[in-house]
């Protein structure tokens, strides 16, 4: 019969020879194999102490971006919500008042911005849809929780730290992904 792969092994149905019927040589061979595994490298990673590096294109939790002066990029245009195949994003727009120029980059901003992380499929389409470079996916994933409502992330949780007030936290949150893009 034609074999589908080159891994086929024919079963030998000859009666066992005397040496084979003694079993001991085969047992010693098997024990040698298991013993050799003592010296092999273990593939396990000790998780909380040591973490596996993610790929540079890993798509994790969302981050709402600010510009270099610390103003929010988002204008609440809603393109991300439209692009979202899982309908995980909701937002409410508001108009920028005089005196708020240092908070929001343009005249319109998102007063409320929520992503339901239980609905989100981390496809990254919101990031591609955004014309203002306001949302991107970071390299961390959502931590576990006991309640469903904890997974609806509000704007406060999504916003990146202020680049001038907390420069270190900002750099950390920025991650490699944003740097590669810019």
């Amino acid at each position, binding site marked *: 019969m034609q074999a589908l792969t080159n891994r086929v092994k024919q079963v030998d149905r000859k009666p066992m020879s005397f040496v084979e019927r003694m079993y001991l040589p085969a047992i010693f061979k098997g024990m040698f*194999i298991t013993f050799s595994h003592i010296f092999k490298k273990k593939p396990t990673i000790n998780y909380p102490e040591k973490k596996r590096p993610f790929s540079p294109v890993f798509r994790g939790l969302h981050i709402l971006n600010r510009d270099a002066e610390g103003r929010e990029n988002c204008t609440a245009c809603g393109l991300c919500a439209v692009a979202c195949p899982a309908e995980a994003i909701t937002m409410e727009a508001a108009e920028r008042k005089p005196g708020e120029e240092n908070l929001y980059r343009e005249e319109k901003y998102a007063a409320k911005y929520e992503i339901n992380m239980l609905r989100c499929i981390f496809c990254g389409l919101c990031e591609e849809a955004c014309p203002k470079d306001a949302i991107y996916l970071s390299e961390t994933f959502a931590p576990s929780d006991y309640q469903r409502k904890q997974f609806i992330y509000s704007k406060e949780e999504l916003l990146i730290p202020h680049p001038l007030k907390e420069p270190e936290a900002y750099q950390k949150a920025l991650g490699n992904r944003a740097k590669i893009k810019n």
Partner: protein
Amino acid sequence: MLLAIDWAFVIEKLVLILVVVMASLGIAMYTTFAERKVAAILQDRRGPNRAGPFGLLQPLADGLKLFFKEEIIPNFSSKFLFILGPSMAMLTAIMTSAVVPWGDTVHFFDRDISLQIANVDVGILYVFGVVSLGVYGIMIGSWASNNKFSLMGGLRAASQIISYELAMGISLIALIMVTGNLDLKEIVLQQQKGHWNFLYQPLGFLIFLICAFAECNRTPFDLPEAENELIGGYHTEYSSMKLGFYLFSEYINMFISSVIMSTLFFGGYDMPFVNEANYSPNVAAVIGIAALMAKVIGFIFLFMWVRWTIPRFRYDQLMNLGWKILIPLALINMLATGGVLLFLNK
């Protein structure tokens, strides 16, 4: 009347009993840990490493868990026997250690203290008697739990141990022919002077080793508890510390049979290439105990190594091996030993 009793002797023996029992329990505890660790390392895993440094507190955590588990006694079981089963398994497992010479004599408080609890001149027979009682714990427990899987496990344990005890006994007869006595201490002293019995009885040792695996219900002969056929075998209905006793007695049995094998075939507390007479008795005793423990650890590792290498026998294969291979082999070994001894004496 009370003065007639040698109180120092009584205290000395009591302390010795306490130390030996505690040591066997402690070693059995850490054998469970070693089992998991060895299994993990042989399978390229890491094994328990969360409780304490290197996971060394894991056996304590396991024991604590077993203590706090709910204790279930099935309604239709016979309660007295249900409790008697694990108690007997534990009792017989510990009792065997009484005749083992753990070392030579030590010298404390102007007394020569022998590191052997009871110097019975038929030590081997005592060990055999107690070990064959061990199966009663399993049988009683399995019958009392009124569960067909338990009963199957108990039946298997009984028939397996009876079949393998025969071959074990016959292989020992050949050894006794070589040594000429049944006293474990005497056997060790002989090996200390001459060669280890393993050199005279390699086939006998192999048969004894295989039978010891079967007697301890260890893989490849763990049919009494075969998880994937009998759920848990004889301890299916057991929970909490009663289950713990069964599991624990298995590890104590493993420890004791390692000790017996080292004593009978590998010189017991004899350290090779070291003349104990050159040292003071206390130092020599420490060297002896260390040597015995090193041998025991080697055997325990062998037990585990085999467990994670060889799959379980089928029941008919087990019986075939016992009755059609090991017993004839042991008989031939006995006859050959007898013939050679007769030839040499002439």
